């Protein structure tokens, strides 16, 4: 086990700068998820930690050791790839023991560790099969087996669940978390799926264009997104980001005037702001009150319903749990919950208000 520390890490591909300058300190035993849209540099960052991509500038430490120029095989890491990357010509057993054989581990120890890993991942009956004879979930478990058998200091996961179907993904998510709790090894997990990030990470790193937007525990990031990007990215359905105009006594949202919320009366606010409301922080009320709009789409999900309301300016997503007799095309009013409002500067996109205790 080891900490992973990146200091001023920078990555160029020729003239293209993929990661401008990045500092990140991942603690020993922590499960950190790097999350962001495609092309945000999260996989590049993981590959740099793995030693599969050279670092242009900066310093990378695993534990106390600077590993910038250390070959991947000497970094004491294991990686689970998106496409599993199992050796097709080797059986499950040979796949798992390959790393130990390369290190010339004693035969008895190799057999014991393979058996342990197989037992842990319920792969024992499959040890003599070839990867092509396995299902997607089983292949993913073999890839994990290959990683854990070496007992590495750091586990790296590069979108390992994205090729699995939704049900299996949920199962594997739990399995990876359970495995982490058991092994207590430092783990760095890359995903573009924010649900995966929220559910798995001890802390999450939200990235965009190679820059860390926010680093914190998932609930803190959800409750107090640092900027508009994080606000829009974390949370499903996404937060409604509505332009607002502030004056002495009022706050106008989508040209509807509301009294300035009590907890914001004393705070100095810029004139133009972006007001963020989670879909469950907007209520549907009688037409004629609040922000007016027309019901565009209704998506009943069983326990809850998601409705898109077209307000003439932009669409607002509302999530509600009670059974409202809504119909598509119906005119309704929308009332945001100001207590859980997130305020952002419309120019810089940065968060202005402190998170309120009822945020969410």
């Amino acid at each position: 086990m080891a900490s992973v520390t990146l200091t001023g890490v920078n990555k160029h591909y020729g003239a293209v700068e993929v990661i401008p300058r990045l500092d990140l300190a991942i603690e020993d035993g922590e499960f950190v998820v790097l999350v962001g849209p495609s092309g945000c540099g999260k996989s590049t960052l993981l590959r740099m930690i793995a030693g599969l991509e050279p670092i242009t500038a900066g310093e990378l430490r695993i534990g106390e050791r600077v590993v910038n120029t250390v070959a991947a095989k000497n970094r004491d890491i294991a990686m689970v790839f998106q496409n599993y990357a199992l050796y097709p010509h080797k059986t499950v057993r040979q796949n798992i023991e390959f790393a130990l054989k390369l290190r010339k581990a004693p035969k008895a120890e190799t057999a014991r560790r393979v058996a342990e890993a197989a037992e842990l991942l319920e792969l024992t009956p499959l040890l003599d099969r070839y990867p092509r004879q396995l299902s997607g979930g089983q292949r993913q478990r073999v890839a994990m087996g290959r990683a854990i058998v070496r007992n590495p200091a750091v586990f790296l996961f590069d979108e390992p669940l994205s090729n699995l179907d939704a049900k299996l993904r949920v199962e594997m998510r739990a399995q990876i978390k359970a495995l982490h709790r058991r092994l207590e090894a430092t783990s760095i997990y890359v995903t573009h799926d924010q649900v995966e990030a929220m559910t798995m990470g001890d802390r999450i790193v939200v990235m965009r264009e190679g820059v860390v937007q926010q680093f914190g525990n998932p609930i803190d990031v959800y409750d107090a997104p640092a900027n508009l990007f994080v606000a829009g990215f974390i949370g499903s359905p996404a937060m409604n980001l509505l332009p607002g105009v502030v004056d002495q006594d009022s706050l106008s949202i989508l040209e509807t005037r509301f009294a300035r919320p009590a907890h914001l009366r004393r705070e100095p606010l810029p004139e133009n702001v972006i007001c963020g409301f989670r879909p469950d922080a907007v209520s549907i009320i009688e037409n004629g009150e609040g922000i007016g709009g027309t019901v565009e789409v209704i998506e009943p999900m069983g326990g809850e319903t998601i409705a898109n309301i077209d307000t003439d300016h932009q669409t607002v997503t509302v999530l509600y749990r009670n059974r409202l007799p809504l119909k598509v095309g119906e005119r309704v009013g929308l009332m945001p919950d100001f207590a859980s409002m997130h305020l952002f500067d419309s120019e810089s996109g940065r968060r202005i208000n402190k998170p309120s205790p009822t945020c969410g």
Partner: protein
Amino acid sequence: MTGSTIRTGTLTTRIVVWVALILLTLWAVLPIVWSFSASLKTPLTLYTSGLIPEDPTLDNYARVITSDGFPTYLWNSLFLAITSTAVALFVSVLAAYGFARYAFAWRHVLLLFILVPRILPRASLIIPLYYLVERLNLLDTYTVLIVTYCATAVPMSTWILMGFFRAVPRELEEAAAIDGASLWQRIWKVVVPISLPGMVTAGILSLREAWNEFPFVLAFTTSSEMRTLPYQLFLLRDSMGIQDWSLINAFTITTIVPILVLYLVFERQIVNGLTSGAVK
């Protein structure tokens, strides 16, 4: 092509395809069938009966196998074919890996240049090579034949293997690198085994070329101890005065059989979809 696309073809298309395939097959197989038939006849009955011999005999084969020097010629052919194929494959694996995985300057030009030994007619190389080989004092040695056979086999094998190596997902090599494999181990323990169909294809083609090679062995060897089967076949035809076609055909079939057996054995070993399950 899937079954359904074949079925959707019109009747006319199917007839044309079938006729073309039958003609091609006959064109390829008939000479061998005729040769085999001739090898079972005596010189007297050679032209009197049809394809099926009236009174088949294995005498010709017995004469071939017991003829003077046959074991030496067979050994020479085998040794040269196997050694030159092994050396050519070893060199080609390294060359193909370089071309498949590294984007270096002038790569495409170099790829075309390595084809030169195959583009030039073999006969045009004999005089300059003879001059060179004589100066190196390598005439009438195995070395010169192995080197020249490799020189023509390497370009072909490199091109074949490069295609297969490119198809090996990079992630597999990255996984191996993280598992602790050196570049050398990645090539021989991951890339090459996954490219087994390519190795078999390149190997069989090289082996066949070396087995059948004639101009170089004719030009660069003189002693009877260095003769290969094709060389002996040529002498057989030339030196007998009266052509004993039954014997010549028995010799021809004896020469073809080992390669034919190899084809049949390895065809089954080219496992389709070997890489399925590696990724996704």
